[in-house]
């Protein structure tokens, strides 16, 4: 059978992942240091793991409500209100999802009619464009650049709007660039959007990892924006729980009810052990005033400064990334493509980083370096990259 032909045209058109190749090489390599990892190096705190074990012992192995357990939804509502001044009704406006990734898919499928356009800041996380395509929409990249610290500007947004524009994805703090959008930046976007019917899908999975003076601003807290915003978040980054696949989607009640239809018929509910663990994460977080999040953030912040300084000392342009755990230096001065840089660096110095192009065309000339790795390894990797850059400088 010709399976290539059997696969749907949409699936055939989705390009293969831009990082797979590097993964395959690194996996075979000894002594390689990887700055290519998109998840925390912290392990899930033991009290969280323990409560999942306890939930199994108690026999909590059944389906929960489609929306997630009421206790967890109430804890999420309380957390969002405390940390980000977000107001969502835990009974009607919050759906517990399988990672924020499911939230992305749900939001897009719930909104898109065939041919609808969805604006995606470029570069951005790898799954937005494929999910838009799978939902029958058209992903429209909106270029962002290093000169403006990869923040999305109102002019670029206005130029990208067409009568077919259905939604805008905002993903700040951003993977891969580490860019953030501060209140004024978001207000400028809100001004452009206020006279349109464009919805906003705000993926705030890195919200706790902001190194700005002011904490992260949720788009839905801007005047008039709550009604048009679907807020996505999860436990992966804030509580080092990537493998648990626990996230949540928040939206106005009528919208959430529609979105939950997709969730209930495809997923039914998020895993019950994960929900028990997530509940413990929020309860213990609140009890210690989110001290472990703060500690984690300080550690990331120190590594971030180390890495930015190291790149600047190599003579590479590197804008200051104020969020997530990525540094996104420019390697154009070496006259190599991002992909060539990453491949040669891996073979010559055994350091894995990810080409910016894996996250969209605007990523050409940049590499994504994750500092979610032990400090001494970050330091060692920086020394190896410096050696490589010195050798290839023209």
């Amino acid at each position, binding site marked *: 059978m010709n399976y290539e032909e059997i696969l749907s045209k949409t699936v055939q058109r989705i390009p293969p*992942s831009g*990082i797979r190749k*590097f*993964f395959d090489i*690194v*996996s075979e390599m000894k002594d*390689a240091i*990887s700055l*290519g*990892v*998109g*998840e925390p*190096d912290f392990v899930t705190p033991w009290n969280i793991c323990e409560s999942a074990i306890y939930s199994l012992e108690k026999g909590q192995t059944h389906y929960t409500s489609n929306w997630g357990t009421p206790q967890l939804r109430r804890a999420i509502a309380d957390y969002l209100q405390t940390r980000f001044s977000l107001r969502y009704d835990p009974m009607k406006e919050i759906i517990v999802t399988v990672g924020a990734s499911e939230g992305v898919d749900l939001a897009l499928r719930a909104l898109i009619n065939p041919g609808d356009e969805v604006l995606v800041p470029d570069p951005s*996380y*790898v*799954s937005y464009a494929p999910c838009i395509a799978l939902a029958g929409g058209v992903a429209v990249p909106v270029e962002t650049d290093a000169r403006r610290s990869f923040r999305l500007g109102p002019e670029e947004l206005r130029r990208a709007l067409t009568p077919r524009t259905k939604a805008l994805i905002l993903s700040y703090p951003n*993977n891969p660039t580490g860019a953030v959008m501060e209140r004024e930046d978001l207000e400028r976007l809100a001004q452009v959007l206020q006279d349109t019917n464009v919805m906003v899908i705000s993926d705030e999975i890195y919200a706790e990892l902001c190194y700005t003076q002011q904490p992260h601003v949720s788009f839905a807290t801007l005047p008039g924006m709550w009604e048009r915003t679907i807020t996505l978040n999860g436990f992966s980054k804030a509580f080092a729980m990537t493998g648990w696949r626990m996230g949540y989607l928040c939206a106005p009640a009528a919208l959430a009810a529609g979105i939950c239809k997709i969730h209930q018929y495809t997923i039914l509910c998020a895993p019950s052990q994960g929900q028990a663990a997530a509940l413990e994460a929020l309860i213990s977080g609140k009890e210690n005033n989110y001290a472990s999040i703060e500690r984690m953030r*300080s*550690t990331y912040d*120190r*590594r971030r*400064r*180390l890495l930015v*300084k*190291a790149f600047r000392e190599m003579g590479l342009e590197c804008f200051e990334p104020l969020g997530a755990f990525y540094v996104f230096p420019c390697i154009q001065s070496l006259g190599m493509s991002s992909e060539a840089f990453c491949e040669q660096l891996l073979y010559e110095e055994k350091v*894995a980083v*990810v080409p910016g192009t*894996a996250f969209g065309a605007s990523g050409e000339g940049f590499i994504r370096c994750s500092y979610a790795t032990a*400090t*001494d390894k970050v*330091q060692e990797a920086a020394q190896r990259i410096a050696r490589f850059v010195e050798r290839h400088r023209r």
Partner: protein
Amino acid sequence: MSLSQLEMGVLDILCEDARTTPERMAAMLGCTSEQAALAVKRLEEEGVIVGYPALINWDKTSRENVKAIIEVRVTPQRDMGFDAIAERIYRFEEVKAVYLMSGAYDLLLEVQANSMKRLASFVSQRLATIEHVLSTATHFVLKKYKVDGVIMEETNSDERLAVSP
């Protein structure tokens, strides 16, 4: 004493790795290396940083090493409380730590010697004979799993995928 944000940052870093140079601390904290060095100096002078010993797993060396945790009941003394008797005890080289405890006994000691015999003789000859010491209960340490927040035989396993989006 109230510490500045910089000083707290220095403590966090040194707590993780006491060998961190002022230059690296400066890069991590966004200050100059002079400022970092000055902060360290001040913290040392104020007695906030008391020492920089390495954490050693002696079980991996050929040096004989016996450690015991000893519960001690004592009679407190007028005007001195437990301080005088604690001092009598912590001056011994074998005594690595002394804590005043609430509960069934008063002082908790961590004692180390290079043989079981020497440790036993320390307890019977030195410790138990001190005036005001009422009783002792010695528990020998069989194996150390975690010391001062550091897991002794951590299997260095990064289970994460080497590259992920």
